[in-house]
């Protein structure tokens, strides 16, 4: 019984530290960004306006999709909240003057264009992009 518990605990620990693929959400930055991975909590802090500067320097230019399944997936699996709640959170920040709204884009193609043109940008798309100038970040849980 002791060994079963030990194996289980090692297995659970490994699971916690393994990078997790969040289905249908690929977090992207500009190809010149020094980042290769990002912790989910860090991503959450950025999208919740708790952090607005990259650690390597520069103001984070975050972008969001205006709706759709990819945006829902980001809200639910990464930000751990319903899209409506995320939207209201930002309405509160903007209308009380506590934050400037993220750039809002209609589609993956707009998102890819925006991120490839802005070196401090952060965004997300539904499929692994083939566009030059884009890098997909590994999300750590």
């Amino acid at each position, binding site marked *: 019984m002791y060994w079963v518990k030990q194996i289980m605990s090692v297995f659970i620990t490994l699971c916690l530290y393994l990078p997790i693929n969040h289905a249908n959400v690929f977090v992207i930055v500009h190809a010149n960004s020094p980042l290769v991975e990002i912790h989910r909590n860090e991503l959450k802090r950025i999208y919740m306006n708790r952090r607005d500067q990259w650690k390597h320097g520069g103001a984070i230019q975050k972008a969001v999709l205006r709706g759709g399944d990819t945006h829902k997936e980001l809200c639910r699996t990464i930000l751990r909240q319903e899209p409506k709640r995320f939207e209201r959170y930002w309405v*509160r920040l903007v209308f009380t003057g506590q934050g400037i709204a993220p750039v809002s884009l209609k589609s993956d193609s707009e998102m890819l264009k925006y991120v490839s043109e802005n070196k401090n940008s952060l965004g997300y798309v539904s499929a692994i992009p083939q566009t030059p100038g884009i890098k997909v970040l590994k999300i750590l849980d």
Partner: protein
Amino acid sequence: MNSSAHNYLAESNGGTYQFTEYGINFMRQVNKDLRVGAQLFGRDLGDIGNSRLNLDWMYADLRLSGSLRLRVGKMFTPMGFHSEGRDIDLLRSTVLLPQSVYFDTFRDNFAFNGVVLQGDQPLLEGLLDFKLFRGGFNMADDAPGMQDLSRFFGPFFLQATQAQMTQAGVPQAFQPNRYSSQNLWGKPTEIQGFRFVWSSANQDWRMGYSEFSAGSEINGEILLSPGAIRLPFSAPLRINKFSILSAEYNWNRFKATFERLDNKMNLAGNSLIMEGYYHQLEYRLDETKELSFSYSQFYPFVEKGKGSGWAPPGFPDHRSYQTDRGLSLRVDLNNHAVLKLEYHWMNGTAQLREVLNPIWQDQRNWEMFLIKTTIKF
């Protein structure tokens, strides 16, 4: 809005459309550490606002280090979950914020000119947001709440005059039994306070405590009737401790909120205690619809140790409390338009304004219905 009896917030008895708000705001990131912004806001709520456009807030926000920021300008007092966002109808499922804690008639008094030091700190696997503030308390004489202040000191003037008259041998039948006020104005003084809000890591829980103290001097005239007695006065007002305790829990489509207000004041040497609280349960039916039920209780004057309210002389006992059971439906028509329908079943009249109810109806139970649309762009 339409109420079955009494005029509440506006001339609601029989229905009114005097219930509009509009605002526009501007923000600019000047550099990586400095942000400036302003909001113009106008409203028409009965005799309040009359659609005049005012500078609602305006400030410069400077990052000192990390999450620590210093904000200077005109701002809303950060109290409870809703003070700062109280004008933003889109943030909530209800038309009215629970009036036991967020009274609309005193809304303008909750703006102040000063400084706020704010930041956040990881705590217990969550995040603690803090705000410390200090500035000048807004007691503008055109703030609607000013005229309502008479209810806090009118009873004392009335009782003192009645006692003097009784001593002088004036029969009770010839003594005044009602009071009103005019030309009230307040001398602005300082306000200082703080707010702490802790959010759990997954944002399911939010708990907070906020508090401020402030002082002012109220000047004006008390009118006692019958007899048309005019009593000019000048009295110090001290808000010793105005506090709000807040808790919120989000679970799937449900959101439960509880907030409690305690206000300990001293007016011309008389201690006054005000209490209010509400529970609210919200349920998201689908992507576009939300249902909300709230239970709200308010006591403008609480007797120490008894935990119940008392009515000013000359008023029925239901002037000492107000219980509000509200049911709301919010429908997001599209990304820019929201429609809200709301019903209130009221018991008590503690929050009715004498200005709107010159002839007092002795009706304890009454109802109210509101419809509101909001457009965002």
